């Protein structure tokens, strides 16, 4: 006749009240598990979007990681073709994308607008990143890009150009002189961040090298790995393989994606607040129920103490009731959460686009066992907390007062 056996019978005796508090726990569990599952799903989606944009690792000049360039490609990586080939020999690396970043002016002959330039190797860039999802007019660069560019719709609007129109790019070369090339607009990108949409312009490395006189030098190499789990090993391997080309910094994506960390913290704060409110609701409801249970069973507690039950055993019996309520409520909550999840996933509700994406996604709450285990742990902890003070009170009741309680 252990604490759980007695606790179970006491709960069964007060069936209606037990069902009520179990319903509260079930609701709390389901809300917690669904919210946590949605939060994990959001983190995963955001992380995937970020990695598709900036890769798992970036290889750059050590100064580029901490300083801004005064002149074009001041902190570039020379011998980019060799560096790219060396990086590609690391087994967990699936793609190495060279990128050149610079600034300049773009003109249609009558208007000039500043732009942020991005030089890419179009084929691999198109295959590995999300840029293909952003094309809303025309098409992405083909082959080595030739003399074509793609640009943000905001920049195109500022210049009043459409696909097929001619433009001239102006920029400072690596040696500080001014250079210009004529280009044709191949496609327009709807970049979800307005500031970037109004300024971004993308061209092939060959064209950009011609503009900047940067033969063989790139701003960075963007490295994609087989899996994020390979990140540390790949980083170490890249440092060894790239040693012959000179000092380089190998920067993981989390260091670069400050935005991701900020959004993550915001999500955690929001979900943390909601979860805290949920837990408080359950704690208060459960504490009221457990306090009633102790009050109703005061005389019984006095009898058990008179018979020789130690105070700790009395306390444990009430705590066991809390744990049993948490377990039964969580099982009901699991069923509820799975049903709500299925309904939400089948609803086709479209969520606003996440940061870094151009279009919204249908709602999809993932099935994360860790979210359900988290819900269970929180509910057990919550019920233990809610039961603790009534249980302690019961354990320390005066036997004589308890026996005469009416």
């Amino acid at each position, binding site marked *: *006749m252990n604490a759980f056996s*007695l606790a179970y*019978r*006491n709960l*069964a*005796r007060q069936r209606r009240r037990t069902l009520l508090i179990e319903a509260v726990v079930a609701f709390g569990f389901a809300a917690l598990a669904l919210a946590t599952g949605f939060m994990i799903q959001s983190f995963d989606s955001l992380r995937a979007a970020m990695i598709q944009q900036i890769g798992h690792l970036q290889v750059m000049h050590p100064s580029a990681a901490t300083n801004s360039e005064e002149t074009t490609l001041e902190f570039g990586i020379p011998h980019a073709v060799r560096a790219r080939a060396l990086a590609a020999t690391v087994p967990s690396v699936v793609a190495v994308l060279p990128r050149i970043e610079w600034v300049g002016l773009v003109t249609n002959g009558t208007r000039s607008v500043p732009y942020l330039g991005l030089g890419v190797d179009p084929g691999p860039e198109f295959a590995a990143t999300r840029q293909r999802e952003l094309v809303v007019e025309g098409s992405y660069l083909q082959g080595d890009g030739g003399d074509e560019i793609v640009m943000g719709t905001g920049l195109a609007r500022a210049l009043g150009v459409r696909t097929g129109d001619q433009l001239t790019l102006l920029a400072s070369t690596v040696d500080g002189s001014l250079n210009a090339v004529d280009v044709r607009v191949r496609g327009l990108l709807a970049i979800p961040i307005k500031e970037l949409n109004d300024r971004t312009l993308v061209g092939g490395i060959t064209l950009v090298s011609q503009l900047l006189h940067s033969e063989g030098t790139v701003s960075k190499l963007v490295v994609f790995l087989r899996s994020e789990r390979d990140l540390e090993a790949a980083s170490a391997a890249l440092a060894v393989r790239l040693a012959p080309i000179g000092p380089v910094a190998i920067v993981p994506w989390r260091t670069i994606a400050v935005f991701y960390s900020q959004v993550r913290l915001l999500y955690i704060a929001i979900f943390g607040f909601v979860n805290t409110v949920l837990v408080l609701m359950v704690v208060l409801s459960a504490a009221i129920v457990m306090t009633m249970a102790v009050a109703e069973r005061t*005389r*019984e507690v*006095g*009898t*058990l*103490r*008179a*018979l*020789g*039950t*130690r*105070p*700790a*055993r009395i306390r444990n019996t009430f705590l066991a009731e809390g744990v049993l309520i948490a377990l039964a409520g969580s099982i009901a909550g699991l069923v509820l959460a799975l049903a709500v999840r299925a309904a939400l996933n089948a609803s086709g509700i479209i969520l606003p686009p996440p940061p870094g994406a151009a279009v919204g996604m249908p709602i999809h709450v993932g099935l994360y066992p860790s979210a359900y285990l988290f819900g269970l742990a929180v509910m057990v902890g919550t019920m233990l907390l809610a039961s603790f003070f009534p249980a302690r009170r019961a354990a320390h009741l*005066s*036997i*004589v007062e308890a*026996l005469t309680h009416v």
Partner: protein
Amino acid sequence: MSAPRQSSPPPVLEAESVSKSYRLGASLVTAIQDVSLSVASGELIALKGPSGSGKTTLLNLMGLLDRPDRGVVRVGGVEAEGLDENARSDLRRDQFGFVFQGFNLIPVLSAAENVSYPMALKGVGRQERRRRAIELLESVGIGHKHAVRPDLLSGGERQRVAIARALANGPRVVFADEATANLDSHTADEVLGLVRRLNESQGVAFLLATHDPRVVARAHRVVHLHDGRILDQAP
């Protein structure tokens, strides 16, 4: 009134100069004042006196359900006042049994489980507990009701279960506070007969707080309390 079964048996339980007061609103009410009483093995003692005379308080103090303001209670020669709650709980479990006026059975347990409960506290195995519980229930005449919950038993049957529970761990003293007060006269007679029989057959001392003259008539010794003091003790 019958004579004690043994002459000068050693005390199994002793109260020495115990006093106890309770706060009732702003005033302090003295329930027991400087009372000494010893209980010998196998004795059947009736505590009698009017309401408020201190019978229940003395029972509570000697049964280690409460602590005296002054004086000491000794169980088998051991002073109980210096013991912590766990040690006092263990003493109650091993040395004492309790029978209450309101029966105080645990409603979620069957008759046999109620009797088993003190044995479970002592760590007796499940099979042994069950065997002994049914044996005890048979000895009080309700072995056939072992699986029945208390709410389905009559008052007399409940008190028999309570008596069986009090005897579960082979106590040296059983405390009974107005154990016959909630029973009809016929059932009360049966219960008292049972108490007397168990007292004689098992050598368990009984300390009975009562108004009931039938209890007094069956006691080896009658302790008369008035205003928290012992007026007289008569064998």
